[in-house]
């Protein structure tokens, strides 16, 4: 490496390190693309188009969430309106304000969809949509769509069979996928923005025979790609959750539209 190139590299590395320290979780650019979702958007429509977006590299941690609560104390567990979060909200934290040092690098769980949304909004972000999450999570360590790799699928499934009593790992412990995103599998379930859009019908007979009294439009979704168990479990989990619910394995990460804005314009 020539000296000036080395200096340039060092500057870039330093800038990167500073950025990483300043941001709650470093967001990663995900390019636009098309993929086959387990939830086809409509009958006969197999592929989903996802616009470019940014996704947090790792789930939001307890420490990051505690920082948010200092700015927005109305979301503390002793102050939150029950309509936004059930009794389990942050109940594992040591105090109303702090998780306890041992939990600081663990993903925050026991948070409701409303609280997760408020956190992301405080950063000028939002929760990822289901299609964004699924698109990013389809990537293996080497390919943007690793879903036809049996070995990779098997590794993911192994997590889902781990006992729920095991304590949560710290964020950033799993290998980065092809986009550079970590922990989409193997750590926690994650809230998505369009939670109420998962109108799942597990029953194929309802296809083409929508109950228009219940659903105004084309009826419920039917799940496809049935060998994609890990993703289907996510769908089943998410579609069973109300927005005020909390769970010991449900965390979140944030997303934003489009490509990365210039450095310095971020909070």
């Amino acid at each position, binding site marked *: 490496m020539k000296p000036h190139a080395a200096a340039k590299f060092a500057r870039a590395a330093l800038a990167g390190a500073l950025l990483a320290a300043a941001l709650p979780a470093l967001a990663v650019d995900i390019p636009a693309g098309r993929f086959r979702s387990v939830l086809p*958007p*409509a009958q006969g429509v197999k592929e989903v188009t996802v616009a470019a977006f940014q996704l947090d590299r790792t789930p939001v941690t307890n420490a990051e969430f505690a920082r948010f609560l200092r700015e927005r104390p109305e979301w503390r567990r002793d102050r939150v*309106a029950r309509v936004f979060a059930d009794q389990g909200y942050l109940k594992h934290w040591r105090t109303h304000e702090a998780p306890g040092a041992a939990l600081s690098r663990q993903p925050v769980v026991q948070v409701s969809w409303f609280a997760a*949304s408020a956190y992301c909004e405080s950063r000028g972000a939002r929760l990822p949509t289901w299609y964004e999450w699924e698109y990013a999570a389809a990537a293996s360590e080497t390919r943007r769509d690793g879903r036809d790799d049996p070995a990779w699928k098997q590794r993911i499934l192994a997590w889902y069979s781990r006992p729920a009593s095991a304590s949560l790992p710290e964020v950033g412990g799993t290998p980065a996928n092809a986009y550079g995103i970590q922990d989409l599998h193997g750590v926690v379930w994650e809230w998505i923005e369009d939670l*109420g859009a998962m109108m799942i019908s597990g029953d194929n007979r309802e296809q083409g025979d929508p109950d228009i009294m219940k659903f*105004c*439009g084309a009826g419920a979704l039917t799940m496809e790609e049935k060998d994609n168990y890990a993703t289907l479990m996510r769908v089943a989990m998410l579609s069973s959750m109300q927005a005020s619910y909390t769970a010991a394995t449900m965390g979140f990460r944030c997303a934003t539209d489009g490509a990365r804005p210039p450095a310095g314009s971020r909070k």
Partner: protein
Amino acid sequence: MKLLAALAATVAFSGAAQAADPPGSIYHLDAALTNQAGRPIGLDVYRGHPVVVTMFYASCPAACPLLIDTIRAVERSLDPKTASGLRVLMVSVDPERDTPTALIELAKARRIDLSRWTLATADEATVRKVAALLSIQYRRLPSGEFNHSSVVTVLSRDGEIVRQSSLIGRVDPEIVTALK
């Protein structure tokens, strides 16, 4: 932009939860809605009244006209005094197409009494939150149409959910009981 910010501030103020709201009140949500007249309102626009609230979209061909008919049938089954105290809030899931102009046209076409009914629109993030509070599922289809669950919710005077019903096309006696 300044005007928008001022509007937003007004909404934030008018929509803010009041200290007396019970913990389960949906009026805790500081939702910036816009009514059919283009005026900013909060989710608590009818605070102090029993309210029937539902979500819809104006261009919906089947269930949404039925939703309006169903709420009207509920009104007709109440005694006149109760009926006159009732308010109806319909929030659109289609912010793109349901502009105040589209909403006022629907109100005219369906002869909706705007002294007691409000048709409202909001940005997508707000719509998601209102739907989440009311346990209403919806999704935009590739065609631009929407798919949504038809749920009628009765709110108490301070915004607590008293009763919900998915029975559309005829009067749910439990909704009527909840309003009495």
